[in-house]
């Protein structure tokens, strides 16, 4: 097992630069998730680590060894693909053991490893089946089994759960977390689903436009997003943003105002701002609560009752709506006027360039 180090890694497709200088260190045994919207370069970066895409410039090191020009088979990585990539004509047993067979592993040893992987993934009863005879979840297990038997330094997962239904995705997510704990292996996982990222990762790498926006633990990203993009991407429902002007400061923080706000809002003390600065106020839907004296007021346009919480959309003006996730089951009618408030420490302020203050 080993860690991974990327130094100013870049990738061009013709004249288009898709990875624009990524620096990253992954410790041995860490579960790192690359997350970002479609086209942000996360899969390309993973494939560069795997050796399936050439690296235009920069250094990729696995276990302290430079691997830029090393063939995929010799990098000590195993990859689980979004499409599973199981050999359709081979049985599950042969699929799992294919890499070992090519490596010339003796038959007995190969058999033991295949059966051990099947035991770990609870698919011993599937070994004689062909991929076409398996469900999506079972195929995914086989793909993971194929990665496990190779005992790689680094496991790579390219959106492995995106073809599964919601319930199975939750199950497989838990299985992957258990697998990571059991194997103690370094794992790099690509997803566009920030819930997967939050639940699985030791460390999340948020990518946008081929640039790393922030690296940190799930709660660091949630509590202290580095910029507007990360703040909007991490967390569900996504953070509400309202453009505000600095009105003044008090001992408890800074007061911001906007014609959309029913009253000035107080945000925990922040550095780097001056009166009259135009900033963006960010408040997570879960930080909002019903408050008759709260700064945000408007009419309810949508109510989603999820049982454990009630999601409401509140219209501030014709172009601006915000979302609030209220705990429990609330009796709120469409069109009803509501006032919402938040604790000053739960709000974020972002500068005009998107940076968090």
């Amino acid at each position: 097992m080993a860690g991974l180090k990327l130094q100013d890694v870049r990738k061009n497709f013709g004249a288009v630069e898709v990875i624009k200088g990524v620096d990253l260190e992954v410790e041995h045994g860490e579960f790192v998730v690359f997350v970002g919207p479609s086209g942000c370069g996360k899969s390309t970066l993973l494939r560069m680590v795997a050796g399936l895409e050439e690296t235009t410039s920069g250094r990729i090191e696995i276990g302290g060894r430079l691997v830029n020009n090393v063939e995929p088979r010799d990098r000590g990585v195993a990859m689980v693909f979004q499409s599973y990539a199981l050999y359709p004509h081979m049985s599950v047993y042969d699929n799992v053991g294919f890499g070992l067979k090519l490596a010339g592993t003796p038959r007995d040893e190969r058999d033991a490893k295949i059966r051990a992987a099947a035991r770990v993934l609870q698919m011993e009863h599937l070994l004689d089946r062909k991929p076409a005879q398996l469900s999506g979840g079972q195929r995914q297990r086989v793909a993971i089994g194929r990665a496990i038997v190779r005992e790689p330094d680094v496991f790579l997962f390219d959106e492995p759960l995106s073809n599964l239904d919601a319930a199975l995705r939750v199950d497989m997510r838990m299985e992957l977390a258990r697998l990571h704990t059991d194997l103690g292996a370094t794992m790099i996982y690509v997803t566009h689903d920030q819930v997967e990222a939050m639940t699985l990762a030791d460390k999340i790498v948020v990518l946008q436009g081929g640039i790393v926006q922030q690296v940190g633990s799930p709660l660091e990203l949630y509590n202290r997003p580095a910029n507007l993009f990360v703040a909007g991407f991490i967390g569900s429902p996504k953070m509400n943003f309202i453009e505000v002007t600095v009105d003044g400061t008090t001992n408890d923080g800074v007061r911001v105002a906007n014609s959309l706000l029913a009253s000035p809002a107080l945000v925990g003390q922040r550095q780097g701002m001056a009166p009259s600065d135009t900033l963006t106020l960010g408040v997570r839907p879960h930080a909002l609560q019903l408050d008759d004296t709260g700064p945000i007021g408007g009419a309810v346009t949508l109510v989603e009752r999820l049982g454990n919480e009630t999601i409401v959309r509140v219209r501030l003006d014709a172009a601006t709506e915000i979302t609030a996730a209220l705990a429990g089951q609330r009796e709120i009618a469409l069109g009803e006027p509501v006032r919402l408030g938040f604790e000053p420490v739960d709000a974020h302020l972002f500068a005009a360039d998107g940076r968090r203050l």
Partner: protein
Amino acid sequence: MNHGTPSGDTRLRMSRLFPGGKSQKARATAVLFVLPAFTAYAVFVLAPLVMSLYYSTLRWDGIGKARFTGLANYVTVLTDPDLLSIIGNAFELVLYFTVIPVLLGLAVASAIRGHMAGTFGTLTRTILFLPQVIPLVAAGIAWSWMFASTGLVNQALTAVGLADWARGWLGDFDFALPAVGIIGAWVLLGLCTMLLVTGITKIDPSLYEAARLDGARPWHEFRYVTLPGLRQEIGVCITVTVISALASFDIVYIATGGGPGITTMVPGLEIYRLAFAHRQVGLASALAIVLMVLVLIAITPVQWYAREKK
């Protein structure tokens, strides 16, 4: 529901055949829909087949009185050294018509895999398919010129210092059949390559990537990903080319007319010659039936191998 007993299965099949129930009306409607196609098949396939079977038991010149001779014509087909040699020629042609196009097609398809999008792909497909568009008669004539004593092949051999190898290829007892085989291979290469190139683009590219990560080298990728992925296309190629070889007529007729001697004579041409030149309709029919059986025997294992394994 009972799936286990034959009666249960029959009921199930019937209900699938006649979703509206087993009423007489539904059955009549189904028959009505099948009738036009069945009539055409019966008139143009079944009737000639039955008539050929009947003719094969006769001694008949095609005009005069026929005489029933039982299986005598079949005995002749299977014992006459010339006819056996002619059947052997057809099987030798399989080597050229099938093996060369399928192997070369696989090689080309593997080589250009991943480059099939865009102009290169379109151009490649067009060039490869061109021999299929050219009428076989025209191809036969063009190749006859190239294989002639003063033709392009001999000119090329002379140009590279191999003048000793030059000969009238299609008139040479040893090389006429291989020369005809090469014409067939050229014609069928386009078809096979097109089928295989199209088939290879359907293989999930991530299988190749998974194989590379599993430690596969190019040969392993070909052996464990490409070949199994092209099973059905290879089956179609082999079936079509084997039939082309065993039932060949036009290329041989144009290029050599079966000569020199009977070195390039094939059953298809011999059937024509026996029936219309020698007026031995019975023997020609027997040879046709034997040829059909040989084709079926040759392609059945291919069909079995190529079908989708569940």
